[in-house]
């Protein structure tokens, strides 16, 4: 099934789906390929922060201005993915008062509205804050659901004619003289390969950009910076809490639905899939975050995870915290003499739309088409109704089956999803529901999910193979936080699967489930 299109987009994160939406709104045909599922890279591995830009105001004013401008746009077009929590930058006794003054001035210059609160005012708003704080600066930070955002972009793109192919990799680029003409695609689940002919190829693969560029014998300078995060099983703060000091490890706690997310570290990495959270990182995050919110010390953690920041190095030295969070759009025709190939990388989740706009503008110029961007004007569609716990509870009918007890996911909810999508991999379900996102992290409900999938004839191989692969993957997020209540729960889970069910030996996650 060879495909012909105008633009081939590689990468199904926020940027890739953003470009697909932007182009298709301009009526330019495009095909997006993603080797995993939606948002499986950095777009799905971050702390879900709707940046106000304040974090970069002092060190990186350009990134700060981009952030606040996109922050306003996203509130307009993606309101259903956002919780407008507001944010505070709190100063503790060891934080320099001079920095706070510089911070306030820099925010003003970048156009970020602020208000200064006294200690008492701040504690009234956020009772769990460290009572030793000196002051807090209010900023328009918020919380965003990145999966919902990426799914909304994907849905809108498809609605306007874009074609999105998941679990599909690009194995080589079609190059004709000094011009790229598409790529060879491989369906990673079925093993089928086919040709995608395109006039333009956009590399929007985040940390993986050099793996794609390698197919053309090219390379750009990237710094891969691992950022680790921890999730608590309760929401300890209503607003985003930042530390008012130069960007550093453990300086933010983002509320997200029913949990709080502690972030982040910055560790230079050579591997694009280095997602291991080390014990020193866990200790550091806990120590720093509990300076801001002391109750974090006693909180039950449910998971640790990490993402790779794809930072583009335009030269210069200094630590990864100093590399600009602004993005880079590289025209490989100009840079390397390979026409119609471009790479978009760097940036932040919050600037994905702007990155997509600039990339689409460049393609339009090359095509000689004069249609302007409209992604900042048209609201994104609602993909899945996002239910608060209370609403989920009310949906449970008498005699109904709640498969995931932690997050109240019903059997009917899963059956509805299975009807509307072409099921290919268990992760397709895990990315689309709250199943396995709660305290037990799927320890009970994934067995039940497999029971349901098996009944529906959707698991073609041994369900235990999928179950073991899931448990092994889950382990990566659990192992760093095993003490207290989490360890207790883990003993229970291990006793079930290795004990009662006698499951043994490890297998790799992500083995296809359809023929």
């Amino acid at each position, binding site marked *: 099934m060879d495909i012909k299109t105008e633009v081939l987009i590689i990468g199904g994160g926020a940027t890739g789906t953003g470009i697909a939406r932007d182009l298709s709104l301009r009526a330019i045909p495009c095909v997006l390929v993603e080797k995993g599922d939606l948002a499986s890279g950095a777009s799905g591995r971050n702390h879900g922060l709707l940046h106000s830009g304040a974090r970069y105001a002092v060190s990186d004013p350009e990134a700060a201005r981009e952030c606040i401008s996109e922050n306003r746009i996203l509130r307009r077009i993606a309101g259903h993915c956002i919780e407008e929590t507001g944010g505070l930058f709190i100063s503790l006794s060891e934080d320099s008062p001079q920095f706070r003054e510089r911070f306030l001035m820099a925010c003003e210059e970048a156009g970020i509205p602020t208000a200064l609160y006294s200690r008492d005012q701040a504690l009234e708003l956020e009772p769990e804050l460290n009572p030793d704080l000196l002051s807090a600066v209010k900023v328009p930070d918020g919380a965003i659901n990145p999966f919902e955002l990426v799914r909304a972009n994907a849905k809108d793109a498809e609605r306007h004619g874009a074609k999105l192919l998941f679990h599909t990799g690009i194995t080589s680029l079609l190059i004709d003289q000094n011009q790229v003409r598409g790529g060879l695609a491989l369906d990673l689940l079925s093993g089928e390969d086919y040709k995608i002919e395109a006039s333009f190829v956009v590399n929007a693969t985040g940390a993986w950009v050099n793996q794609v560029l390698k197919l053309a014998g090219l390379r750009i300078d990237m710094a891969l910076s691992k950022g680790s995060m921890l999730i608590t099983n309760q929401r300890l703060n209503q607003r985003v809490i930042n530390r008012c000091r130069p960007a550093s490890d453990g300086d933010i706690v983002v509320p997200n639905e029913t949990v709080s997310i502690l972030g982040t570290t910055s560790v230079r990495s050579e591997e694009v899939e280095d997602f291991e959270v080390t014990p020193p990182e866990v200790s550091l995050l806990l120590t720093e975050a509990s300076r801001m919110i002391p109750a974090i010390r006693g909180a039950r953690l449910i998971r640790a995870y990490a993402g790779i920041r794809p930072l583009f190095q335009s030269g210069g030295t200094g630590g990864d915290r100093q590399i600009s969070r602004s993005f880079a759009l590289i025209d490989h025709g100009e840079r390397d003499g390979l026409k119609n190939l471009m790479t978009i990388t760097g940036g932040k989740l919050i600037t994905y739309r702007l990155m997509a706009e600039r990339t689409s503008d460049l393609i339009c110029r090359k095509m000689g088409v004069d249609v302007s961007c409209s992604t900042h004007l048209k609201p994104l569609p609602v993909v899945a109704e996002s239910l608060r716990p209370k609403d989920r509870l009310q949906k449970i009918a008498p005699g109904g089956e709640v498969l995931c007890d932690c997050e109240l996911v019903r059997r009917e909810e899963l059956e509805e999803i299975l009807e509307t999508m072409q099921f290919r991999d268990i992760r397709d379900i895990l990315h689309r529901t709250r199943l396995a996102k709660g305290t037990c992290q799927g320890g009970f409900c994934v067995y039940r999910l497999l029971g349901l999938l098996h009944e529906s004839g959707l698991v073609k191989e041994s369900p235990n193979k999928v179950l073991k692969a899931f448990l*092994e993957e889950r382990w990566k997020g659990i192992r760093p936080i095993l003490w207290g209540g989490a360890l207790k729960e883990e003993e229970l889970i291990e006793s079930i*699967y290795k004990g*009662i*069910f006698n499951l*043994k030996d*490890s297998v790799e996650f992500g083995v296809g489930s359809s023929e």
Partner: protein
Amino acid sequence: MHFDLIVIGMGLSGLMAAKTASESGSKVLILGKGMGALCLFSNTIDLLETLPKGMKLDEGLSQWIKDHPQHPYSKVGAKIVEEALTSFTSLFPLPYSFVSAGDGNSLLPTGAGTLRPTYLIPTTMVAGASVREQGGLIVGFKGFKDFYPDYAATLLGCRSLTLPPFRTFHEEITAAGLARSMEKESFREEIGREIRREMGNETRVGFPAVLGVRDPWGVKKGLEETIGAEVFEIPILPPSIPGMRIFNRFKEWLVQRGVTVLLGHSVSKAILRGRRCEGIRVSNPPLSSFYSADRYILSTGRFVGGGLVANEEKIYEPIFDLPVSQPRSREEWFRKSFFSNLSHPVHQAGILTDSSLRPVDDKGERVLENVWIAGSILAGHDSTNEKSREGVEIATGYMAAKCAMKK
């Protein structure tokens, strides 16, 4: 109140200890905050996975003891392990009793369609041991989320049947709810007829292990009459109904024997003088009581039971603050792979004892004179991976009581 012996913890090891001490004529108090891991995991009586099929219990166990001098079985000795198992099985006379297949392990089907080696099996599960060879019909209930007959049956080479929802259920269907329904004759007849209609040439029918709490044998027989085929139970996700049967039987027996049984009570503090325990404070809000005894047995389990607690730095024992043998740092508690072939080192952590099961420190010095340790809290074993959970509990519970009541 003063007792000869106080047993702290009401899992299988504590219950065994209380039974054993009471048989020697002692005045015993047993207290626990819950029913222990017994009602989570114990469907059958595991002894040791490496006990090869057909190998006599004493041969296999003696070899294991030789190879693992620090293991709780080595403190007890093969002879006492066998004695303890006999004492356990004496509580369960026919028809609902525990049996072994020719002194070795049997392979029983599980809710995940796997086969699992185990030593003593309740008579309601025996027919499952040959399901792989002889086939059968695996039955589940629509709306019961903890068992998927199709999942298990496919892997076991059986046929499956999901029974439609019955009028009996208005709320979520749980294992305990199903077990209660199973005890009603009308319910058994209703499902029995349905199954009979769907029967092919199968001669046996497997159910999730929910065939009643009080009279599982009666439930099995009742179903067999209606269906016209042999019926067996398959262990599933917790809670364990077969575990509850064991708990109830012990409790009934202990109460009859005059043992004081306090469920829902946890020890808030042990009062020590030198190397002796003088008493315990028990909190049962809003009340707090004091109990004392000449001797104490600690059988509070591991992390799930609360016998061991882990904070970010270390593992400790909360009641007596006994020394806990453990890896040097938290980084070493767990291996990188969940399904590692080697057991996670944290499972070997626990209380070290001398040969009489009294707690010692890392130099082997006895820490307390009138406290004995029993059950999964003991260092040097990994009950899940060795499949030794119930065996260790029964053997050390029995042995601790024997040692404590000696003089």
